[in-house]
């Protein structure tokens, strides 16, 4: 069907209009955010809003020089990287065992892992808040890293398990014949082969932590503000700061956009929790 050169029937034209129309709808807010970030204060507050104007990088210059914004970016980066590292370190071995071994209670573990995906965040947030309050972990990087690992660990294990299951079983067989023990075969044979999957899950974890708002806001407080929390804190002055805020938000989106372009397939698989491969 694909090979045959088809004429443009009205049906195909309508279909394309709908599909690309939806694409425009998906893109429009992102376009508008970038558009606002390139406007001077006068243009940003113009009535009606302008589509055509002289673009300026003033907002970006101001935002980059703002030490608070640099602080937000650093916090976000530290927390997302640490949460990703620890999440993978602890999640990968568990995912491998769940992928390859049948043992008493393995079904229960899988169920609990999925259950955490379904728990309302507020049910986790309140106890976290109380526990952190008593341990003095509120407003610390450590606290936020712990919380973000907790939020993501189940997802990490679940998706990595799918990736490990995709690896052929003869691999361990071959490693055994070559005289490797179980740990050795995991470390030297399985892990390198699963690297693309691990990278994909790593990116997903990074994005999830980078984008997370509720836990960061409540547990980080005014002490450790990540970018989303920082942006929210300044929305109050929106009339004056639209351009600057848009620039900050655009900067925050930059790594996300890069990841989407580079790892589209893996992201789809991850965001749909392995339902789409």
């Amino acid at each position, binding site marked *: *069907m*694909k090979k045959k050169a*088809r004429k443009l029937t009205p049906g195909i034209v309508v*279909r*394309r209009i*709908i*599909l690309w129309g*939806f*694409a425009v*709808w*998906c893109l429009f*807010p*992102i376009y*508008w955010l970038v558009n*606002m970030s390139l406007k001077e204060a006068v243009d940003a507050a113009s009535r009606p*809003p302008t589509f055509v104007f002289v673009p300026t990088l003033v907002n970006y210059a101001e935002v980059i020089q703002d030490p608070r914004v640099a602080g937000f970016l650093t916090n976000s980066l530290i927390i997302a990287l640490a949460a990703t590292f620890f999440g993978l370190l602890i*999640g990968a*071995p*568990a995912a*491998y*065992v*769940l992928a390859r071994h049948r*043992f008493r209670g393995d079904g229960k*573990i899988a169920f609990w892992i999925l259950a955490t995906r379904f*728990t*309302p*965040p*507020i*049910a*986790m*947030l*309140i*106890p*976290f*808040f*109380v*526990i952190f309050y008593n341990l003095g972990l509120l407003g610390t990087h450590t606290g936020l890293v712990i919380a973000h*690992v*907790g939020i993501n*660990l189940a997802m990490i294990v679940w998706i990595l398990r799918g990736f490990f299951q995709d690896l052929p079983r003869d691999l361990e067989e071959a490693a055994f014949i070559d005289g490797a023990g*179980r*740990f050795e075969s995991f470390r030297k044979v399985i892990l390198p082969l699963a690297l693309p999957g691990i990278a994909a899950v790593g990116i997903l974890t990074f994005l999830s932590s980078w*984008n997370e*708002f*509720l836990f960061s806001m409540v547990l980080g407080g005014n002490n450790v503000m990540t970018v*989303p929390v920082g*942006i929210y804190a300044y*929305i109050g002055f929106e009339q004056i700061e639209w351009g600057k805020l848009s620039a900050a*938000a655009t900067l*925050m989106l930059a790594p996300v*956009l890069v990841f*989407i*372009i580079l790892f*589209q397939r893996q*992201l789809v698989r991850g*965001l*749909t*929790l392995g*339902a*789409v491969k």
Partner: protein
Amino acid sequence: MGKRPAGGSGRKASWRRERGHFILLMLTPAIVLLTGLILVPFVVGFGLSFTDYILSLPPARFAGFDNYMTLLSTPEFWGSLRVTLIFTVCSVVLQTAIGLGLAILLHEETRGVPILRAIYLLPMAVTPIAAVFTFRMMFNPSLGVFNHILMGMGLPPQDWLGTGNMALLSLILVDTWQHAPFILLIIAGGLASLPGDPFEAAKIDGATPWQTFRLVTLPLLKPFLAIALLFRSIDAFKTFDIIYVLTSGGPGTSTTTLNMYAYKQAIEFVSLGYGSSVAIVMLIIITIVTQLFLRRSRLLTVAES
């Protein structure tokens, strides 16, 4: 030294003996962490819901079912349950209709599909706060681009977030922008994995496109639709970012969902005991819905295959 049990060769036996040890060691850190970060908080939250704990007003006292009794007799609770149901059902129905329709169109499309898929992925991957902030600018009654576009088309401008019904509608709109692609991508993935034979058969039998869709496509898609619907419903039920940034539950309590209600009680008013009871009720609702869903469709097995 007993390293060689009767039977199998030395290495094979040690490989087998290593098994329990291996599983234990590989699994323990994750289990400890999941216990510490999920089970313990859950137990703490459950316990809190039976106390009158208010932060910085210790000591908390055991209050039995007081919180739950208060909850069930508070109009705000029932109001927020109603808002949650309206928001969830409207969002999910709208997103399923859009997602399913577009997935079928996308499946038939031959040109530019990778680009379209990448674009469709954006709303669900992009930082929610950044996107929601943009919507807040666009919803602005006098400076926002939405009213500008409406007036350009000769339609009356709207007070998007200003009145109760309109605010709820705007939230559903933003949620649909963000999540219709989720359903679209799952269904598109499902369509790509369907066998071709039933469609051939339908063609030979001379089925109309609508008949093919209703009698062949839809039944085959059922497991994928079930996953998409379950995940989406539960996530819509838990929505926070969109509502918090756009309306904070207002005007009045017109967009206060259960989640917002729990947040306000627990975090803003630091009534952690009472807030916990709201959260536990949410958890109970989700558990019941999930169980009903799992029983009706063999979801876990599909998710695994």
